[in-house]
Each structure stands twice: as C-alpha cells, then as structure tokens.
C-alpha cells in the first residue's frame, strides 16, 4: 500500500535523473577541460546533498531533544547515513576529477579539507550510534553530538578558509549558461533522489521497528521470566 502511494515520487525522481543524466552527457563539453568536466554533474550535486543531509540531521536532533519522539531520531540517523554516503561520493568524484585537472588526487584546498573532516565527523556520529544499544539513550547522545557537530561545522569551515585565504573563487557563476542549467538540473535530480532515499530509509527504519515490535509482541515476556529455576537443584543428591 505504502509503496503504491510512494510511487509518484519515485517516478518523478527517475524521470528527472534520466533527463539530468542525458543532459550531462550531451550538453556541450567544457571548452578547457573537455569531457572530464562532466564529472561536475555528479560531484557538485553530491556535495550539496551532503550539506542538506547534515542540516536535516541537526534539525532532527534538535527536534528529538524537544519532543523525545523517536521519529525525529530516525530522521536524524537516516539523513546522516545518506549524508555520509554522499560526502564520500563527492570526495571520490572530486578526486577522480582532480587527477586529470590538477595532476593529483588531492590538494589542501579549504573546501576539500572541510569535506574530508565532515566525513569523519559524521562517521564518528554513526559510530557513536552503533555503540549505544538502548534506543532512547542512543537518541539522546546522538542528538547532542548531532548539534555540537553542526554548531562546529561553520567554525571548521571558516577556520580552514581563513587559513588559505588564497582559495579560488567558485567559478560556478562564471560558467556558461547551458552548463549551469545542466548543473542546476543535477542538483534538483539529486535532491529528489535524497528525498526518495530518505523516505526509503525512514520506511526501512520504521519497518525494522515494527518488525521488532511484532517480534516483541509475539515473544513478549518480561526479562525475569527468562530466568528459570535451575534444573540442577530439583534433584540435589544425584
């Protein structure tokens, strides 16, 4: 049922991704870089998505602390997972792009450094989640970390920026209009993809919880009932 109701979003997403993909492949190649530049249509939207996802994580964290509603925790966690994946994708795409363009996989550009750290910050967030078993405790600790991390991100960002004030201006504004439209289309497509993924992930988390609840109802027993009388004591002098 839910799947049918959800389908419209997926159809739209697939369509937009298709169009975006087609445009990315067919739009005129960049004058200076040639076809390599097409990586941008994956790279930039991924990076954008990562930020979006982590923002949602922060919102979810704050909302959980206010309401203590586990749904917010699921939102924060799911979004962080997607965010980490897309941060990784942005980094990998960026690195593949960097090799031909800059001659090496990595430079110490502020944006790159921030992205890499972002990756680890949220990897830590997910590791923390995994380390706590009780869902409420997990939600609470993760929420605090989700907020502290988000508050720190601007500081991390600016500190790196100041450090290398020679950063190149983003050329996004100076690129040709057709390319820019394609890029915009990519961003829209990825945002839709995010929505779909998030929805799926949330659905999964909810189903997991439901399954848990069902399993829990079926085998519902109180902790103490699992401890039975020793079979040993019943016949003491065997």
């Amino acid at each position: 049922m839910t799947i049918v109701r959800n389908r419209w979003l997926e159809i739209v997403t697939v369509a937009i991704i298709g169009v975006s993909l087609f445009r990315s492949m067919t739009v005129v190649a960049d004058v200076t870089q040639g076809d390599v530049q097409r990586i941008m249509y994956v790279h930039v939207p991924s990076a954008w998505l990562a930020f979006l996802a982590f923002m949602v994580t922060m919102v979810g964290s704050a909302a959980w602390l206010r309401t203590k509603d586990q749904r917010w925790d699921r939102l924060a966690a799911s979004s962080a997972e997607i965010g980490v994946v897309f941060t990784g994708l942005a980094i990998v795409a960026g690195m593949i792009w960097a090799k031909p363009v800059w001659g090496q996989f990595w430079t110490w550009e502020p944006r790159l450094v921030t992205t890499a750290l972002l990756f680890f910050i949220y990897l830590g967030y997910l590791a923390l989640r995994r380390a706590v078993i009780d869902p409420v405790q997990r939600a609470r600790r993760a929420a605090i970390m989700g907020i502290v991390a988000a508050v720190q991100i601007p500081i991390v960002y600016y500190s790196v920026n100041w450090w290398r004030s020679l950063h190149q201006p983003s050329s996004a504004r100076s690129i040709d209009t057709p390319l820019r439209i394609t890029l915009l289309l990519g961003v829209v497509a990825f945002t839709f993809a995010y929505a779909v993924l998030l929805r799926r992930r949330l659905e999964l988390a909810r189903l997991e919880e439901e399954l848990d609840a069902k399993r829990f109802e079926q085998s519902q027993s109180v902790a103490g009932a699992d401890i039975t009388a020793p079979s040993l004591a019943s016949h003491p002098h065997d």
Partner: protein
Amino acid sequence: MNGHEIVYLDDVGLRLGNTIILREAKLSLGPGEKVGLLGPNGSGKTTLLRIIATLLQPTSGSGAVLGAEIGTQDVYEIRNRIVMVGHLPGLWPELTLGENTELVARLSGRSPEVAADALAQVGLARASERRADQSSKGMLRRAELARALILEPTLLLLDEAHAGLDAEAIGMVDTIANRVVAGGGAVMLVSHEPDRLNVHRSVQLVDGTLEMVS
C-alpha cells in the same frame, strides 16, 4: 497519591532494547515506612531501585519521588535527599577510604569532620588510610554505609542490603535504616533472605509487577 508519599509509582513500565523489565509496577512508600523488595534473580529489583532513585527514567507510567515528578527537571532538587547503595561500590579506587568519605562530605557541602566520624561509626577508623582498591569487599560495603550516616537521607535504598557484611557489621543496616525511619524518611531494602529483613512489609517483583507479600 495523597501528596504525602515519599515514593509513589503508578503503572511504571520499563523496556530496555527489546526486553521488558518492568510493566505496571505500582508502589507507594510513606514516611516512616521500611519496606523489603523481594524477587528472583533477574526480576528487576536493581533496576527498580535505580528508577526510584531518579537515575533511570521509566518508559511508561508516572510517579513522584520526594514530591518531584519523575522524568521532570524537578528531580535535580531532591536528589541530594536520596542515598542508594548498589551492587558495585561507589568509591574511587585510587583514593583511600578516608578520602572517599571526605569526598562525599565535601561534594555535598558538609564538613570533612562529619566524614571521619561516620567512618569511625562503621568501624573503619583505623583503615581510613587504606586505598579502596586494596580493601576487601566488606570494607567497601561498610564505607558505603558511612555515606548514609553522612548524608542523613530521607530516602534510603539498599541493594542486597546485607551482602558482604560480617556478623558484626550486619547490625548496622538495621541501625541506619531505623534512623532514617525515625526521622520521617523511608527505606527500601532488597534482599534474597526475607527473614533477615526487619521490615514492616515486603513487596515482591513478579513478572515485572509488584505484589504484596503476606
């Protein structure tokens, strides 16, 4: 709830992960009451004690301890009127028994002399220079009881009240509990030996709910 109870739990439930530990536990503990908490292994006695001490929040139900609704910020105001002695010793292993009790006095804003006095009362005056990690189980247990003497709580919670105490020390449990009761407080004692509990009444944890014991 009539507003005078020291502990009042209404249908308190607790679920940790996938396990139900408590469900619909009801309890009411008035001033001057001394109650035993019984129940088989793993039935949730220790857990219930921590809920009553406001250290663990139940997942369902409501209740109040010393007038503060559990799960609210009010509990911060009344915590210093509760003493709980649990399974594991609440002492810093690197510090001596004397320093440990002094710490309790200091952190609660009392003078260090009170601590030395309490240590003497539990029979550890001459062992006060001994580090906690070089003390025996029973010595640690005694040092913990000293905490109750220093803090003079309104609510005293003792898990496995007599555990590890020798014949001489075991009388202290009653003495300390009676003091609290005499001062209008309440005491809850967990034990596996109901005969050794000198209590007014006992409740028993069965299947996550509390039952009266006749």
